[in-house]
């Protein structure tokens, strides 16, 4: 039954033709209406020229108000294009899956009513179409990755938009409309699949680096003699007992860190500082001599004998 194979091939072609080229970014706002918006990004050259022509002393609207109005106008255009883009991504996903599912349903339903030979052909065709659907979805990876990519685009846009709004807090002589044009381009670029994948890849690499750092040995440990270990343990227990939320204890930790020559970073999480101190103590106290040396330093920092 050659027509079964042809039917499956036609359905595959129809579905594939609908999304042969995957749109990876919103339609640029400078292409939406060439009659209305000259081929520039927003704000356009005309908008910037008009803005620059407004005297610094102008009121109602002031130059700053004009700047912010132009930024808002352009941002809303970008938002509109982005929303349409995301909607189109989802439409492509639904239409692809639906086309294949309908074909599979039609073929298998006919199998029970046909003659034996026809039933075999129909069932074989159904298996072929179902298999093609699985392969097609795997290749395009829509269902699994689209939500993550859209979420990353949203996150990228939110960061750029926040910075844009922060910049608007500066007056118009510091943050001009031309400066905003650059940031708006960045806002537009943030809503693209390319930027989303770059951000996701960068986060994955950071995670790999962090994991690698975790398993990288800080020093080589050896067996410590019992007498030294007893004193060393007492030091570690003391450091761990410090309440990092209490200023006096935090100051003691700082004094120990300085005495042990642990590099401190301003604003560092106290738990990380304590971590660094403990690692330094573990690494440097190896025998009686090094324990005595550390005890002298710790006496100065804590007033205690170890």
């Amino acid at each position: 039954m050659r027509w079964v194979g042809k039917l499956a091939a036609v359905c595959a072609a129809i579905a594939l033709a609908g999304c042969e080229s995957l749109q990876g970014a919103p339609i640029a706002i400078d292409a939406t209406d060439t009659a209305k918006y000259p081929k520039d990004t927003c704000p356009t050259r005309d908008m910037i020229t008009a803005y620059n022509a407004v005297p610094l002393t102008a009121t109602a609207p002031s130059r700053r108000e004009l700047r912010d109005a132009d930024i808002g106008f352009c941002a809303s255009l970008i938002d509109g294009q982005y929303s349409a883009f995301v909607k189109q991504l989802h439409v492509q996903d639904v239409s692809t899956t639906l086309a294949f599912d309908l074909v599979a349903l039609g073929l298998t339903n006919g199998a029970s009513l046909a003659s034996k030979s026809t039933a075999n052909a129909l069932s074989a065709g159904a298996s072929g179409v179902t298999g093609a659907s699985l392969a097609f979805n795997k290749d395009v990876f829509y269902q699994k990755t689209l939500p993550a990519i859209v979420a990353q685009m949203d996150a990228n846009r939110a960061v750029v938009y926040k910075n844009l709004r922060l910049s608007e807090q500066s007056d118009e002589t510091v943050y001009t409309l031309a400066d905003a044009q650059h940031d708006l381009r960045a806002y537009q670029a943030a809503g693209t699949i390319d930027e989303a994948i770059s951000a996701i890849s960068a986060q994955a690499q950071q995670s790999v680096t962090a994991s690698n750092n975790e398993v990288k040995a800080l020093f080589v440990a050896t067996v410590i003699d019992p007498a030294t270990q007893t004193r060393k343990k007492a030091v570690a227990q003391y450091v761990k007992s410090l309440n990092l939320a209490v200023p006096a204890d935090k100051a003691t930790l700082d004094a120990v860190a300085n005495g042990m020559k642990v590099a401190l970073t301003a604003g560092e999480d106290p738990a990380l500082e304590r971590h660094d101190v403990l690692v330094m103590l573990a690494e440097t106290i190896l025998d009686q001599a090094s324990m005595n040396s550390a005890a002298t330093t710790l006496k100065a920092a804590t007033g205690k004998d170890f």
Partner: protein
Amino acid sequence: MANPATVGVAKNTSLSDLNTIVGQNEDDLGPLTGIGNDGTQTTLTFDTDPPSPANHAVIAADSNGQPVVPASSTQVCRGTVFIAGAATPATATRPN
């Protein structure tokens, strides 16, 4: 929040010394959270955030590919460590 600190142990270390090192570093840093190797030495990972445990973890070689967890002990972590120079699948357990 976990603050991991990984230390290395020479690959020719005996199992007895390896466990002594585990106990001493649990006292100095915090509870053991991971065991493994970096190809040239055993690596032991400790968490410096929580208090040091009262009972030290103990590493034992796996038996027929299975972890050996003594009665009244809890499995902490598994990995391949060097015992007397030989890469050995092992499990760390902690007495309850």
